[in-house]
């Protein structure tokens, strides 16, 4: 089982993603420069956050044309797991691998804070498992579970036409919604104005997941939250099952 973290010029969360996959899950993980022609040998492909190409034109619009993206699209169509975080989510939308688009936050402010995201679908390759936290407490996937995750973006305002939003709802493709600490979905709990408080969606088949929050920055108690492990551990387990390797052993953080 091999994982790739794609590096675009301007990616800046690549090391965080690599760290989690390598140190928390002891995976065989490689950086892949965006000019590489193929990601065929990988089972999990991560598009990290950052400011690819300086966000010129639109966020993700130019990265979408990087040579590696052709192979990412091919592998995604074949059912490989593709995870896009923040700028990675924007790139997946620009590449039309996920529906919709991300525009400027309503407030026009860059938002950098911890938010709560409510899990809306616990039957995806990214959100189905149970995680043991460092203090021994369990974090078990269930619809309505609140995840405390950091966000850091200026363009996270998810937009799609009414028909697309209807389809996303009908097919349970909305995976995370911004909520308050009690789980209520409200305008006040929405940090960027996104439609229906959407924080993360999958494609119809469920193998491509894009989200604005940063689970890779929430996998260690030192960072204030371990809730991101639910997403990483789920996808690692899914990938391992697909490649029939042994289940991951989470290294204990001491």
């Amino acid at each position: 089982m091999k994982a790739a973290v794609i590096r675009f010029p301007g990616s800046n969360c690549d090391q965080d993603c690599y760290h989690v996959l390598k140190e928390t899950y002891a995976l065989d993980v490689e950086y892949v420069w965006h000019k590489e022609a193929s990601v065929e040998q990988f089972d999990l492909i991560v598009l990290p956050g950052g400011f690819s190409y300086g966000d010129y034109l639109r966020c993700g619009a130019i990265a979408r044309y990087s040579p590696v993206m052709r192979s990412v699209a091919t592998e995604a169509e074949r059912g490989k797991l593709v995870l896009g975080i923040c700028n990675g989510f924007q790139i997946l939308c620009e590449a039309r691998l996920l529906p919709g688009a991300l525009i400027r936050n309503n407030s026009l402010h860059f938002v950098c804070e911890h938010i709560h995201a409510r899990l809306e679908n616990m039957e995806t390759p990214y959100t189905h498992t149970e995680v043991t936290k460092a203090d021994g407490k369990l974090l078990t996937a269930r619809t309505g579970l609140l995840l405390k995750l950091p966000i850091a973006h200026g363009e996270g305002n998810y937009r799609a036409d009414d028909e697309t939003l209807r389809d996303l709802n009908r097919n349970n493709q909305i995976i995370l919604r911004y909520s308050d600490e009690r789980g209520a979905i409200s305008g006040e709990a929405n940090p960027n104005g996104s439609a229906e408080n959407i924080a993360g969606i999958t494609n119809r088949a469920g193998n491509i997941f894009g989200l604005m929050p940063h689970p890779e920055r929430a996998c260690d108690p030192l960072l204030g939250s371990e809730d991101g492990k639910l997403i990483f551990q789920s996808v690692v387990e899914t990938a391992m099952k697909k490649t029939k390797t042994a289940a991951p052993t989470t290294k204990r953080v001491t």
Partner: protein
Amino acid sequence: MKAKVTVMPKKSVLDPQGVAVRDAMRHHGLPGVGSVRIGKFMEIEIDGANEAQLHEICRDLLSNPVIEDYDLKVEA
């Protein structure tokens, strides 16, 4: 030849920048401002391309049809 491309947020898509600028104009003594919408204008010098190819690049790269409309004008 020269191509001039205007990209505007779709009417149905909220334009947060436009709203902020509208409010600033009202504060600057123009209470009658109804709306402001902010887009992009690109001037492209190009040889060896036909209009169909330019429309294609407008759709695929220069604008995002999910949220934006474009207008292309080609000058000899």
